[in-house]
């Protein structure tokens, strides 16, 4: 099949279409809207045999999505940022129902201040809700990840919803060549959704989401959810192997870029990892032995794979495109935690915060990251969280502050 140019959003819509979903509850939000617009058009024309319904909010949208999945339909939905947070309560609720569905989140920084461009505070806020999480770097990966997501979600060993993340603007509105999987081959990869444990019918009444009294019962079900999520590691590996066999593209839970002889490693996620890879190439051209580890699967957390990839390195720099105020980078903490017991753990762990609200990561910033990380590795003590900000960006903000002052004082 030949590749065609499409945006990340269109690729996401194609993922839903190829998965032959039954139901699309929707609500518009920038930068995700193109996905639901596309699906509305396809449902209207009949090229996708699904019902498309616009709900009154993301909170309602997620409830309808979970309820439809609980009834036995294959469900797709998408949101961003404030929308994901508006639906937050329901994310936990539907994960607890153990219903498989796929939610695409198009990452966008959170208010306040209100903005439209990407960072990962939205999707990472949802890391504890029970959804599995796959993070995509390219438009090709978006469509492929959605197919993988349905396969994992619907596996009897998992039975959990999956979130597929792509970056707003940087990926959602960027056209890249995408090879669409052959629908007939997709049918081999993704069997029809016929869940035996779900559905509300006259002859087989079911109660779902019932209350529990007492911590033991509650703990039992939450432990079950955790273990099911961990099963996702194994199920993902099987699905990725099948995917490679059928479509020729391989997706590991983490991607290792020029890691073979790397002494220092950058850890990144999503589309900005492309910038990171370019920076690795540039640094290697200057003689630095560096590599990049891109986390594709955030939940379940592929701890062993990460440990294996990072053991024996001199220093590791986690570039978090998110910020937990008063703490630092969210993924830095998780990387640090999973390396603690590793005998050959890197000599230094460094934390950098960059790309908030779509802020650029410049070549100079990457160079500084490599230099500071190498120094830290030599010293044997980590640094951070370092808030990346360039002098020109600083001047830009100062200029705005100056204008604000002038407007306020009338001078």
């Amino acid at each position, binding site marked *: 099949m030949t590749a065609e140019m499409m945006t990340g959003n269109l690729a996401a819509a194609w993922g839903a279409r190829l998965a032959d979903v*039954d*139901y699309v*509850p929707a609500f518009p939000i920038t930068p995700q809207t193109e996905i639901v617009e596309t699906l509305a058009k396809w449902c209207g024309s009949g090229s996708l*045999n*699904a*019902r498309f*319904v616009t*709900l*009154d*909010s993301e*909170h*309602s*949208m997620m*409830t*309808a*999505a*979970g*309820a*439809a*999945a*609980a*009834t*036995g*339909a294959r*469900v797709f939905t998408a949101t961003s940022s404030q929308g994901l947070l508006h639906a937050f*309560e*329901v994310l936990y*609720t539907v994960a607890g129902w153990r219903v498989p569905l796929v939610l695409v989140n198009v990452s966008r920084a959170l208010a306040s201040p209100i903005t439209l461009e990407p960072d990962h505070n939205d999707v990472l806020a949802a890391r504890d809700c029970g959804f599995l999480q796959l993070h995509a770097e390219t438009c090709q990966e978006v469509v492929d990840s959605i197919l993988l997501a349905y396969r994992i979600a619907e596996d009897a060993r998992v039975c959990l919803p999956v979130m597929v993340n792509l970056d707003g603007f940087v990926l959602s509105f960027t056209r890249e060549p995408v090879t669409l999987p052959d629908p007939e081959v997709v049918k081999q990869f993704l069997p029809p959704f*016929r869940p035996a444990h779900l*559905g*509300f*019918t*006259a*002859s087989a*009444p*079911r*109660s*779902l*989401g*019932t*209350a*529990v*009294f007492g911590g033991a*019962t509650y703990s039992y079900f939450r432990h079950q959810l955790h273990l099911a999520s961990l099963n996702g590691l194994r199920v993902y590996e099987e699905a990725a192997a099948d995917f490679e066999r059928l479509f020729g593209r391989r997706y590991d839970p983490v991607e290792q870029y020029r890691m073979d002889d790397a002494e220092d490693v950058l850890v990144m996620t999503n589309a900005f990892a492309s910038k990171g890879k370019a920076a690795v190439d540039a640094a290697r051209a200057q003689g630095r032995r560096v590599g990049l580890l891109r986390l594709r699967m955030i939940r379940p957390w592929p701890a062993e794979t990460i440990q294996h990839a990072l053991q024996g390195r001199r220093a590791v720099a986690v570039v978090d495109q998110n910020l937990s105020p008063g703490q630092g980078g969210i993924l830095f903490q998780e990387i640090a935690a999973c390396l603690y017991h590793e005998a050959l753990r890197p000599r230094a762990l460094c934390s950098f915060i960059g790309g908030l609200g779509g802020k650029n990561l410049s070549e100079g910033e990457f160079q500084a990251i490599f230099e500071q990380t190498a120094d830290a590795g030599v010293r044997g003590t980590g640094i951070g969280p370092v808030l990346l900000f360039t002098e020109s960006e600083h001047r830009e903000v100062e200029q705005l502050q100056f204008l604000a002052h002038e407007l306020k004082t009338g001078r």
Partner: protein
Amino acid sequence: MTWEPQIFKTLHQIPREEHVFPGTPLCAGCGGLESLRLAAKVLGSRVVYVDAAGCMTNLAAFPFTPLDASWLYTTMGSAPAGAQGVRDALDVLIAKGRVPKEEDVQVVVLGGDGSTYDMALSSTSGAITRQLDFYYFCYDNEAYGNTGVQLSPATPYGARTTTSPCAVQHPAGTTQEKKDIFEIWRAHRPPYMATVSPRFPLDLEEKFARAAAYKGPKLFLAFAACPTGWLFDPAQTPDVARLAVECGLWPLKEAVNGVVVHTYWPKLTPVEEYLKLQGRFRHLFEPVVQTEAIAHIQERVHGYWARVKREEGNS
């Protein structure tokens, strides 16, 4: 014109078959449960109850359910959206031949007044606007009951709750008026809406039977006398429920395609008789009688029924 029941004319016509069985964790004397039990006699068991957070969330507590129907607990603010998902999925699966038509079920939202009047308004309004084919059953006990009786937008003027106590600043307790959710629904023009009281079982059953003829959103506002929250002996639930209607505070009515008809003309007994039965109004009577507050409640009742008389004529 007098509203007459067409189907349920005597108590013997009410099905003896039960669909809400005894032994629930709800309070003794729960008026909401009484309404649900009567409603289920007509709705039957081919139902999925989509529940909002509230007292009735306790009905299905693992591993028990008192219902012979399906159950899906959602959230406090989005049960109608849950109903949307279930209904849409059933429609799609039936159309695609994955669920046989004869396996179809009715979707019934179950919500208390806290959810119905406030938090779920957005999802409710959305569902009605989309003409979702569902029942909405609200058990209205005029407070956030499950959390220990706090002020809700359904709490009537003069009632005492734990967050609208009788105090120096506001001796009447609740100073706001009960929100008119019936009219908010009616502005959406759903095909069928009704208020019901379990003390008027023929009226209640007749309304559920009539509603079945309409496809689309169907509202039932059920009076849920609440011994725990309103502070009366559970044995008095029937008296409280009956007096609420007879004093005119809980009008029994229906609206078909937006046209309102009152289905029972109350005796309009003085509101004091109803208020005096309940501890939540005791501060209106002692240590001093709050004459103005009581008169205010009475005036609003008279005002309401004067308007009904003008609009529907004297029967």
